[in-house]
């Protein structure tokens, strides 16, 4: 058995552990209720501002409920004040922020 053949399983194990570590870190989910977001013209501005917040992975808009869901990048935490400022810069007001919670998990913590 060559040296490379002996080290290949160790290398594979190391890579697997690294990937598992990222998976454990997971993604955080934030739910924000927004006042004044009544049309898609309004919502696109909110989406653009929130996507520019460092650590944001994706933004989902629910126009009928006036709600936005933000998924943070794995391991990243989004600051509530930064999210509020992004929404205020778009011209709207935050009614409530819930999060962070693990994406796909139950009810997140609430910040008013």
């Amino acid at each position, binding site marked *: 058995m060559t040296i490379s053949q002996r080290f290949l399983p160790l290398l594979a194990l190391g890579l697997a552990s690294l990937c598992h570590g990222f998976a454990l870190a997971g993604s955080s989910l934030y739910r924000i209720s927004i006042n004044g977001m009544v049309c898609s013209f309004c919502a696109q501005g909110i989406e653009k501002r929130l996507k520019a917040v460092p650590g944001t992975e994706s933004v989902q808009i629910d126009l009928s409920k006036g709600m936005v869901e933000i998924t943070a990048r794995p391991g990243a935490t989004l600051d509530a004040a930064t999210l509020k400022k992004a929404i205020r810069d778009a*011209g709207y007001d935050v009614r409530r922020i819930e999060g962070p919670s693990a994406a796909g998990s139950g009810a997140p913590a609430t910040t008013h």
Partner: protein
Amino acid sequence: MIFSLITALLLLAGIELSSRTAAIAAPLAHKGSIVVSGEVEPLLSSFTVTPALTRSTGVGPALHWMNPETDNGVMGDGDDGGQELWSLLMVTQRLHRWNGAQYQANLWAGVGAGLLTVLPGDGTSVGNRAAWSPWAQADFETRRIYVGASTRWFQAADSERLITSARAGVALTSADYNRWQPWLMLEARTMEGLEQGVEITPLLRLLHRRVLAEAGVSTSGAVRLNLTYTY
């Protein structure tokens, strides 16, 4: 609360009797955005670019091309009777916004300064004149209803135009971020110095994220097309 706000806005609109040329839902978008708007019709066509310096203030250029009717009456006794190009630098200011869970209401004001160029029928320029143009707008909208009113005054030596409009609209479908939302709008407008009487125009509005498009035909048979895009 909502009904008292609607009443207040309608009263304000009635008192001000005012109108902005391209009366869209929001003349200004989010901070850092640029709203580009064009409106085409026989008597009055406009092209505006409004970069938002802050979430409530925008500054940008505006071009308004006017083609007054020969017997336009009321205003501008010294009018040359030719086509007009108003080239202005506009300041757009959102004075206040009320954001509610189910509604949004706004008070807007602005002023532009620049030049009026009058072109006689043979296309020869008769020179430029200093011009200015203040305007104001009030609007209220929910996910299914829009009401608004605006007024705009164009003034230069020997030329004066006052455009006043009121609008109401209803969405034909529920608001969905991933789909186009059609609206049926109805506008009543007077254009003192351009034409006599009240012009009524039903418009079909299509709204989807960055795009707002409108098309309609007025009671006098004039075709109107509006297109607004946000960068």
